[in-house]
Every structure is written in C-alpha cells, then in structure tokens.
C-alpha cells in the first residue's frame, strides 16, 4: 500500500518502524531505536522527519547513521529528512532494556543505569562479564575500539570484553 493511502496514524507508525529498524553501523546487533538515538519520527507536510541524537560529539558513525535512517524512510515510501538533535544530550540511560540484553548477548557489557551523575560516569559500579557473568572484572582502558566503549577483562574466564561505557 502506498503511503498516501494510509491514515496519518498508520503512516506515522510505518515511518517509525522503518527508521527504528536501522542497525547501528558499529554494533549491528542493536538498532538505532534500541540505542535510543532515534528520538522521534514525525510527518510534516508529507515529509518524514527523523530526529537523531549523536552518541558522542565526534562519533564518526553519526553521518552513516543519518544516511541509513534517511534511506530506510525512502525505501518505506516517504520523502525523508534527518535532523540532528544535540539537546538534550543522549545518555546511555536511553538504551532500552531489549538493547541492553542484545549488547550482553553480543559480548558487550551494557552500561549501568543513571549515567547522568559524574559519579556513575566513573561508576566504580560493578561491570559483570558478559560471557560468564562473573563480577570479578578489571578495566584495561577507558577507551576502546569505538568512542562508546571501554576495555575490560574477566578474571574468572580470562576473556577480554568491551563495556559500553556510561555517559
């Protein structure tokens, strides 16, 4: 069914579903909706406008994500535009429960909740090993293969793993 035959609510739902299914280019097991970086999709004068928040200010994936969201909306039959939304700033608290579970299953320890205090940011909170569940882990570096990750190691199963850091 072409978009013009849909009710406004149906068209809005279709646009959201199309944009929400776009995978993150760096961690493709989670979608932009799982990560909470897709803030909204609204229909304005027949154009689907997606609002996307960058994870990190300089995240090189931002442009790729915006292009992918725009392409997904076009594929779903919409004229599309993406707006970058800097404020309020994205926080890892916006990652959905489902997103956290997907990260864990993929081998990335998800961030703790309540990332908004600097205390939690440096959370001496426990990071459990995503493979064996052990809480005997240690940080190797605050910085990892992408801006959003830190490197950890499990002292029980001895595997290194990524931690999606709180921000």
């Amino acid at each position, binding site marked *: 069914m072409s978009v013009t035959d849909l009710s406004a609510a149906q068209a809005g739902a279709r646009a959201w579903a199309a944009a929400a299914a776009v995978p993150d280019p760096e961690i493709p097991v989670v979608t932009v909706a799982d990560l909470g970086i897709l803030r909204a999709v609204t229909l304005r004068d027949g154009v689907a406008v997606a609002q996307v928040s960058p994870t990190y*200010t300089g995240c090189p994936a931002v442009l790729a994500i915006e292009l992918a969201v725009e392409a997904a909306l076009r594929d779903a039959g919409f004229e599309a535009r993406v707006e970058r939304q*800097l404020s309020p700033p994205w926080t890892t608290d916006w990652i959905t429960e489902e997103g956290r579970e997907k990260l864990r299953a993929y081998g990335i320890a998800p961030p703790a909740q309540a990332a908004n205090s600097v205390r939690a940011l440096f959370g001496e909170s426990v990071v459990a090993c995503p493979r064996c569940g052990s809480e005997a882990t240690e940080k190797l570096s605050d910085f990892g293969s992408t801006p959003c990750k830190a490197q950890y190691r499990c002292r029980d199963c001895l595997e290194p793993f990524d931690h999606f850091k709180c921000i």
Partner: protein
Amino acid sequence: MSDAIVTALLELADDHLVLGHRLSEWCGHAPMLEEDLALPSMGLDLIGAARVLYTRAGEIEGKGRGEDDFAYLRDERAYRNCLLVERPNGDFAQTMLRQLYFAAFMEPYWKAALGSSDAVVQGLAAKALKEVAYHIRHSAEWVIRLGDGTAESAARMAEAVVELHGYTDELFLSSEAAQAAEAAGILPGRAALRTAWEAALKPVFAEAQLDWPEKVWPQSGGRKGEHGEALGHMLAEMQVIARAHPGAVW
C-alpha cells in the same frame, strides 16, 4: 556585535580542532595499543565539538561559510586558538600534561556554559561535559603515573611542567570578542574559572610529586593570531588535501 560572537565561537572551535588534531597525530605512534585508541578517541571528541561550533559560527555569520571553510581555508594568522593547544606533542608526558591542563579548564567552562543563552552552545556543553570528565581522568592518571614513576619519567614530567605551564595563563584571558559573547550570555567568563582549575590540578600535582610552579612567564597571543611556528606546520599538513582539491567531497 554578531562579528564578535562569530569570532568568539571560532576561538573556542579552534582550541578544540587544533588540540584534536594534535591528538590524532599520535594515531599509530602511541606507546601501546590502549593509548593508540585513547588519544584519537579524545581527539574525536574535541573535533566533534569544533564541528558544532564552526557550524554555529557559520550560521550566525550568515555568509555561507561552514565547518570545512573555517577548518581548511583559513591561514595560520586567522586561527584564534590559544597557544597551549598548538604546542607540539613532545613526549608522552607533555601530551598528557597539555591534555590535563586543557580538560581541567574546559570542565568548569562547559559547566558554566550549561546556562548559555544559545541553544547550540548549551546542548554542546551538556554533551562535552561528560566527555571531558573522561579526558581529565585519563590524563590525570598518566600525569600521576609518570610523575610518581621512575627517575626518568619523573624528570620528563617535571620538564613538561616547565615547558607548558606558562601557556596556561592564556586560558583565563577573554579577548574583546569573547567579552562580547560573555556579555550576551552566550559564552561563560574565563577569569573566574581559575579557582576551579587550580583546585582540580593541585591534588593531581601533589600525588604526582610535582611542584606547582609559583612563578611563570605567561605566554599569549593566540587570540590575536600570533602563533608559534609549530601551528603553521600543523595546518599545512591538515589542510593540504582540501586546498589541493577545492570543493572535493567523499
């Protein structure tokens, strides 16, 4: 008025781009893999902030200039960054101390900028504030590790303080343009941040067994476009592709 706002935003953007580029120079050369990831990661944060600020400056200026025009098509004399950020990487001690000096300044700066009257600056401040917290922790850990390390590393760290401390004073000076932006509530004042900066740094220096320099000879001039020769070399490398292929896209 709006000219002054544009200039003030460019000063801040240039600080971030120049330091971000300096950090990127470590990519592939850092002493260990973790640092090869950490330094460019911090660089990306800074370049990301610069992009937001250049774009905003271009909007206010209204002449159609964007981030690439500001970054790639201005000469050294048109750059308005402070001298600290353009200092060459030197050794690892100098790179880390330069980072700590800058990050410990930007933390209270961004905190104050949360109250900016400009929505873009305000949004950037909220984001950058979290990122800079990681930069402070990372660089402070290294300053302590090297300062309180071997005789060799301690000597190099002490040398880095001698080399760089004189460039920190400029962080606290507001140019005429910055003063206009401050009066308009767009950017926070600089002089008032010295207390917070010293309070953040002095415990790190103590733990690192470093003496806090009481007497320094302040260096400034970056906000007037008076730079050391190191910036020219850096810009030549950074701008060569964009200038050789005007308007190229990828």
